[in-house]
């Protein structure tokens, strides 16, 4: 059987069972839409948090009166730690300048104060710290052991809260994702099975005239693939439309002004479309296999 015949048969089939097909496709669309909606929320939380989380890192204070020669060595040791993104040395003078800047108009309080009252320090940025806050702790513990290091600071409390929060958010997304995947697979395969039962006579006749399982299954699989594609496609278009709607209509309050909503990464979009197609294919294949076993 060539591809042209297959496509022709599949299209004819769809036309003849339009209502059923539309219904099944809608079920696929809704399931995927719900899943994507959760993902979108998660992705935006992620995005939001990483914008504000760039400050997140570890501050390493060096011992007072430390030997200048040790500083490059500590720098290299810090950089060598797994998960460290970059390290910036803050000299006593630099720290002082920052403090002045921070105080702004009130910087006169610092007049006559010696810059050396502030210790030398390093700012260590940690990769993906926001989403794996536990890393901060691990890295801080390692840094403490370096010679010449006096104190290590990181927003411990905040990090702990963040840990809980991102953990929950991730679990919710993953759990709802898995649940929805199963629901979708289940509902789709039930719908398909009903469809197959409704057409039992046709399948019986096909078998009678010597159709191979492949010939019988071919159009069904084709339809299923198209269904997965359509279902996921429609869900993504709907989600994108509402995303555009919301993000253009959303007037951000002052402090997060300029913070834009982001859409799902294209990799996830492609993955969802692919998965949807595979799911529909498998659902159809397994509900037909029962029937095709003579």
């Amino acid at each position, binding site marked *: *059987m060539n591809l042209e*015949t297959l496509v022709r*048969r599949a299209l004819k089939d769809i036309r*003849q069972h339009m209502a059923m097909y539309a219904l099944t496709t809608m079920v696929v669309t809704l399931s995927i839409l719900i899943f994507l909606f959760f993902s979108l929320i998660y992705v935006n939380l992620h995005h939001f948090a990483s914008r504000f989380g760039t400050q997140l890192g570890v501050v390493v204070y060096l011992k007072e009166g430390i030997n200048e020669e040790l500083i490059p060595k500590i720098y290299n040791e810090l950089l060598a730690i797994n998960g460290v993104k970059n390290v910036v040395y803050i000299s006593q003078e630099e720290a002082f300048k920052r403090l002045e800047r921070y105080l702004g108009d009130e910087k006169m309080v610092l007049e006559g104060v010696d810059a050396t009252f502030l210790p030398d320090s390093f700012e260590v940025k940690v990769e993906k710290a926001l989403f794996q806050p536990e890393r901060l702790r691990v890295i801080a513990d390692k840094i403490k052991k370096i010679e010449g290091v006096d104190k290590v600071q990181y927003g411990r409390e905040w990090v702990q809260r963040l840990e809980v929060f991102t953990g929950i958010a991730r679990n919710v997304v993953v759990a709802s994702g898995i649940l929805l995947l199963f629901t979708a697979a289940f509902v789709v395969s039930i719908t398909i099975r009903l469809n197959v039962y409704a057409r039992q*006579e*046709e399948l*019986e*006749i*096909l*078998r*009678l*005239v*010597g*159709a*191979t*399982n492949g*010939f019988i299954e071919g159009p069904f699989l084709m339809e299923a693939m198209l269904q997965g594609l359509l279902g996921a496609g429609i869900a993504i278009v709907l989600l994108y439309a509402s995303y555009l709607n919301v993000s253009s209509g959303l007037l951000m309050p002052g402090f997060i002004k300029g913070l834009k909503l982001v859409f799902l990464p294209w990799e996830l979009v492609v993955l969802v479309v692919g998965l949807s197609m595979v799911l529909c294919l498998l659902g159809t294949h397994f509900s037909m296999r029962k029937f095709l076993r*003579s």
Partner: protein
Amino acid sequence: MIERDDGIPIITLASVTKRYPHDIVALDDITLSLEKGEFCFLTGPSGSGKSTLLKLLYFAEQPTSGDIFIEGINIKTIKEAHKPIFRRKIGVVFQDFKLLQDRNVFDNVALALEVVGFSHDQIAYRVNKVLESLGLGGKGRRFPQELSGGEQQRVAIARAIVNRPPIILADEPTGNLDSVRTMEVLDIMDELNARGTTILFATHDERLFEGTRRRVVRLRDGRMEVGY
């Protein structure tokens, strides 16, 4: 189709028994052979196992014990994947026609060729020819419910013979037809048989084979009464 006459029976049942669940013995130790080109009636009262015997031959059921040979091949040895292809050697006709109501006459017949993988043109040529030969020329665009019972049965026969199978199994094909249509169907079968097709014709209507010289196999409660 190349006709070989190598003396091997085209259909052989060797001690075939078919038991359905709940200990229903539909066929009990049937041994039977059909030569190539034979026209054989299969008769017996309702429930005697006629349909079951045919079902075994077109792979709709499997025997509980015993062996079935078609063209000398034990069908037990045919791989599952090859069964559909082997089934194409056998055209089947039923009492209730089994036509697809949402396809027209042409498409119903074409189905048997689509399955085999004939091209568009070949299908059109062959289907039109077979419809013509069965007196259905010009009815290709009609749907089954727009035809009389006799016409519907001829469509079903057209579908069964369009890819020229060497064997035709008919299960009470005249059960729903009046005597004129019944004779038409018998004539079609005679003609097919004259061209070398082996025919196994199940019916409980004694009149169909009264006075013929054709072989008649009688079943009763799953056993053969008369055989040779």
